[in-house]
């Protein structure tokens, strides 16, 4: 995959260091008149695990959705693994191949079995033979500990199981980055743990991850960096220990007090 940087000379000069996975500079986005993202600068290194938190409407979901171009940014630059996101469809497709995404509402395809959900993208996007795709799929299903559900339909699984399938589905594309958009907020409390366990295990394996979540325990355990956003801006970012014990801005303090002591 390192050939991608050469194949794309325009992006190559942007990735100064091999260590950088994602770089955002001066990213701005508006919904109509509403300014959702204001001059976001963010660099994510390979293997880094970032947790983004913030009140609802702060733009945190929009930010990670810009990284795989589910949303289009209007100003600034976004470079993922040396590939810049522009109107170039080829680049968009390349970035999406390398970036896996897990949604709040799972977005599994209800008309396909679990196994078909997992093999769909490898077969159609990466052109992997079916047999091979199925082997890979079973491998990841084992990793998320539900290989026995392969033949079922998503509607027959519990929320936690569905989310684990969604994670496995993304992993089947062997992504370099995983984005998590509030992966546990649609789940019942007893199911949150099984999903977080999978995510922690994934983090230990060295995956580059960006998670929008309010699971502060998870942030303390695995994150290298915690980012706090409000009103479309990055207010504060720091190591988890520093971030939780010694927040700098008042806004962060208020937010932390609200979610930690409710």
């Amino acid at each position: 995959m390192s050939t991608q940087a050469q194949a794309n000379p325009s992006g190559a000069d942007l990735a100064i260091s091999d260590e950088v996975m994602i770089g955002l500079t001066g990213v701005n986005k508006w919904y109509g008149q509403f300014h959702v993202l204001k001059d976001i600068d963010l660099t994510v290194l390979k293997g880094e695990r970032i947790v983004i938190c913030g009140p609802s409407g702060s733009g945190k979901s929009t930010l990670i959705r810009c990284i795989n171009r589910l949303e289009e940014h209007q100003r600034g630059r976004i470079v993922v693994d040396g590939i810049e996101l522009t109107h170039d469809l080829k680049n968009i497709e390349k970035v999406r191949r390398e970036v896996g995404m897990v949604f709040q509402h799972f977005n599994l395809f209800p008309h396909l079995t679990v196994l078909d959900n997992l093999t769909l993208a490898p077969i159609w996007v990466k052109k992997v033979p079916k047999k091979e795709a199925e082997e890979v799929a079973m491998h990841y299903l084992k990793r998320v500990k539900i290989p026995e559900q392969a033949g079922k339909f998503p509607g027959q699984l519990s929320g936690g199981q569905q989310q684990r399938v969604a994670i496995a589905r993304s992993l089947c594309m062997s992504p370099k980055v995983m984005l998590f958009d509030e992966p546990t907020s649609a789940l019942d409390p007893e199911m949150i743990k099984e999903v977080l366990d999978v995510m922690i295990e994934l983090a230990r394996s060295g995956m580059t991850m960006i998670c929008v979540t309010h699971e502060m325990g998870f942030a303390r355990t695995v994150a290298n960096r915690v980012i706090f956003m409000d009103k479309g801006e990055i207010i504060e970012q720091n190591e988890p220990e520093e971030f939780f014990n010694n927040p700098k801005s008042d806004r962060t303090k208020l937010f932390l007090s609200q979610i930690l002591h409710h």
Partner: protein
Amino acid sequence: MTDMTDQSIVPGTRPDLPPPVTESGVIGWLRHNLFSSWWDSLLTLSAIYIVYLIVPPFISWAFVNADWQFLPSVISGEKAPEFSDCTSGGACWIFVRARFGQFFYGFYPDAERWRVNLVLVMLVASIYGLLSERIKNKKPIAWFFFAVFPLLAFFLLYGGIGLPVVPTQQWGGFMLTLTLAGIGIVFSLPIGILLALGRRSQLPIVHLLCVLFIEFARGVPLITILFMANVMLPLFLPQGVEFNILLRVLIGVTLFASAYMAEVIRGGLQALPKGQYEGAMAMGLGYWAMMRLIIMPQALRVAIPGIVNNFISLTQDTTLVAIVGLYDFLNIVRAGSRDSNWIGTEIEGYVFCAFVYWIFCFAMSRYSMRIERKLQTGHKR
């Protein structure tokens, strides 16, 4: 309640007692459903009176006093059957029996009718295959039905390559009705899908064109589209190219049906949550792959009841082709009852015709309702 000490029954082991007589059984049912108040009773009695006015006379006309059997002289071939053979005063079903072949096959030659039957058998078998829950792998059936079957059916019905040609002027009756509605649905499905996608497209010109077409076709009556196809279309064809009347009608019917199809499919598309699109895009699927693999399979499934309902309406609407002189089922029955041998059999003709349409459409609508209920219970299988 008053006398707790007398209770010898351990709590939780009380036997289930039958409800009061007034609440159950025939009497309870009658009380609840027919005579719950004086007003209700009045309604019930008047309804019974109305039923009494309509149903017994109809039964005596259609069954008790009806003529069913050919006269011996007709069976021995001495004379042709005619209206005056009916003497009982009720319905003259001899008319329907005498004309039965024509009603179903039109003027299709007797010796070639097996071809129509064969097409019908294939049609029913493949529709059953497509819709049955027992058959899991529907891909080959779908390929057969949408790609092979139309060609095969055309070859069988029209002829050529060894089979004697039956010109379309000889097609008629219920077979023509089914042909029109079937072809209309099969061809309007792909066009309707494209129109629906176009209408939801973000490309302004494509969107506008699709909206214009759909709203135009839905804003005017089918009969005016048939009229247009019949009198105006020939003027716009190249010199020397002629479409026969059946083809012109089919073009009109297909365009008309595809606008309605587009709206049904658009409904199916709208029923899908946005997350399905996002999930597919995040996995790197392109527009067409996303539509083919993720969106359409789900949208079409949601749209099946609507598609079946479209098919029902189209079957009923094909009666309008009489305006351009085609002999569909209704028109051929009408023509039959105007035959000089059968003057006076109009009601019999209409009742028979209505009965056939009713069976066909009612069965389809029941099926579509069943699917709808199944869809409502979710995607679990």
